[in-house]
């Protein structure tokens, strides 16, 4: 069969869309829409762009009220929901963000100043936002790809795409409809340390995987900490993977990150609250289901 493929760099990683049954002339238009969504969302949420809405907020919201767009308000409301639902394991507000990504020494130095519940230090309404404490910054790193993916899925469906496979940085994977040859899409998620992979089937569903960041340094693969543990006030160094399966790519992304950072009570809260979703953990070479999802419970 014909296959349309669209690949690009976005949000600091690579994005791949595969639409079976489509060809280049048909796909070109949706490729352009997808590219526009990715650019718009990056311009809104990137911490690395001087002119993004997020950068403007981070630079000014301590001094004065900063006007926010309707989508930014929706993003903040969405964050609010997940901060509450994960009992603070999801933390889109960071203390001294720039330092946080730096060396371990720096992280230790600042962690003592870190407060567990930062989120209460921002206030917003329909039109404006204000930071109530100094040294904080919004960071939508564990949110942006999922958010953009939701917009992309809506756009593809509006444009009559009924079957598609989308990978965003390989850490967030979304499917539309079923495989063109029938039945759900089958994926095989690699294990750490060459252990047995995890088979997951996807039909109008998404998965997101969190763990240490994989970076190639001088041709060698290195794993780097990039998620902060709010309650233990440290970067997460354990080499584990957390996988969440959900109908929503945004929820999958948020919860897989939150689970990496969650303590036991937060973990329990997440598993209880999101009982429709599926959660898997890969530790020491074994994939293990944290909670059998009530729906779509067909994983091996």
């Amino acid at each position, binding site marked *: 069969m*014909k296959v349309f493929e669209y690949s*690009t760099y976005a949000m600091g990683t*690579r994005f791949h869309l595969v639409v079976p049954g489509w060809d280049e002339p048909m796909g070109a238009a949706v490729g352009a829409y997808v590219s526009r969504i990715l650019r718009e969302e*990056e311009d809104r949420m990137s911490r690395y762009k001087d002119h993004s809405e997020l950068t403007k907020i981070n630079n000014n919201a301590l001094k004065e009220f900063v006007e926010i767009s309707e989508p930014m308000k929706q993003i903040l409301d969405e964050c609010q929901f997940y901060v509450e639902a994960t009992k603070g394991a999801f933390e889109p507000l960071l203390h001294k963000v720039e330092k946080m990504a730096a060396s371990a020494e720096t992280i230790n130095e600042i962690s003592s100043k870190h407060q567990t519940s930062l989120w209460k230090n921002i206030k917003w309404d329909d039109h404006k936002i204000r930071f109530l404490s100094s040294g904080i910054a919004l960071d939508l790193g564990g949110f942006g790809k999922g958010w953009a993916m939701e917009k992309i899925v809506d756009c593809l469906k509006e444009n009559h795409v009924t079957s598609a496979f989308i990978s965003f940085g390989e850490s967030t994977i979304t499917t539309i409809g079923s495989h063109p040859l029938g*039945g759900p899409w*089958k994926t095989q998620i690699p294990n750490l340390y060459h252990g047995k992979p995890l088979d997951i089937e996807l039909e109008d569903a998404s*998965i997101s995987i969190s763990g240490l960041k*994989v970076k190639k340094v001088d041709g060698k693969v290195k794993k780097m900490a990039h998620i902060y543990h709010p309650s233990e006030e440290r970067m997460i160094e354990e080499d584990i993977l957390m996988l969440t399966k959900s109908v929503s790519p945004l929820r999958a992304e948020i919860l897989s990150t939150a689970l990496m950072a969650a303590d036991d009570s937060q973990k329990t809260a997440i598993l209880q609250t999101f009982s429709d979703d599926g959660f898997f953990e890969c530790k020491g070479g074994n994939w293990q289901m944290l909670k059998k999802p009530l729906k779509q419970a067909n994983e091996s």
Partner: protein
Amino acid sequence: MTYQNRRTFLKNGLVAGTAILTPMSLMKIMAQTGQNVNSPNNKVLLGVIGTGSRGMHLMQIINDNKNQNGIEIVAICDVYKPHLDEAQAIAPNAKAFEDYRDLLEMKDLDGVIIATPLHVHAAPTIDALNSGLHVFCEKAMARNIEDVHAMALAHYETGKILQIGQQRLFDPKFLRGMDKVHNGDLGIVTQIRAFWHRNNDWRRPVPSPDLERFINWRLYREYSAGLLTELACHHIQVGNWAKRALPIDVRGTGSISYWKDGREVYDNVALIFRYEDGTQFIYDSMIQNKKYGLEVQIMGDKGTLEMETNRFFLENPPAPPKPAGIVQLVQDLERNVFGSVPIGSSSWDAELADTNPGEPIIQNDSTDGTPESLTGFANSIREGKSIPGLFEEGYYGTMWTLLGEQAIDTGEVVKIPQQFVV
């Protein structure tokens, strides 16, 4: 080559004004850099006429790069004593003059650098060439096209080197960028945009009111065409260089829109140059907003150069490498095979964070070409010959700048009068 010979050569061979100048010829000259330039017979002895802000800057650069250029400043000249004294501190052994004609009579001089105000370029240049000296004259060449042409004639007739201070011709990112334009990396170039924006009154402090016109010569039409001769001529030269052609005509507008302080030159200008092949070169400059700074954008169907900021953008940037799982998925689908997709990792660290940040034209962008242009001048003197096409770049850069001024002043579409084609 004498002027007559050159005209015949052009008539028989090349279309007038199309650059014979190649980045390669400049690179070759630069490659000679540092080759024993400091041995006594290899030293190039220069005088500097006009030791104001630019003149002293050039002297400083010469001193800082002695090992590359092998230039010794043996004479300085300025009609304004405070500037002459300051320059003497940079070149303590140089002989000081207040009248350039006395400087030109010095023995053992190889050449002069002229960094006087625009209206004082032509006379010292022509006098120096006629005295058998090589000349490095700051851009723009002169205040009117007749003087510009007279300077060209003096250069061709004396056979002495005349190099105009268009330093972009020696700037590695412009050299490499032009290579890209000329070898087709941008595809077909049909539009060039350039702009130079600042936000200040462009005035210099004046110690006493009777020195206003002398110090702030840039603001008065008798001495300068303002933004056009002081800034635009740099980019107008680059436009012609990129097209390897001369415009067929220019139109433009200008106004004093903001700095209504008694100045006579426009503070806001726009020009459009047209080229034979349909290319438009759109230029503008102003001094009441600096957000966009300065840039030259050369646009083809395959790519764009942003020369001042050292960036090259492909119209269709390469797609990221595909993860193995996606490659397998596509192969399976194309063969109607239902396979499982091996995919998934915690986070893939991109080699490229931005969607299309472009790529640098050159690594280590560390010079604006001025030191290299002075070294190039000294090397040309050592070789006893001009770099082919280099003078003409400067000539047409200024010529089309002044024609642009005419277009603005008259509101007409202006072409180059045939007698000014060299």
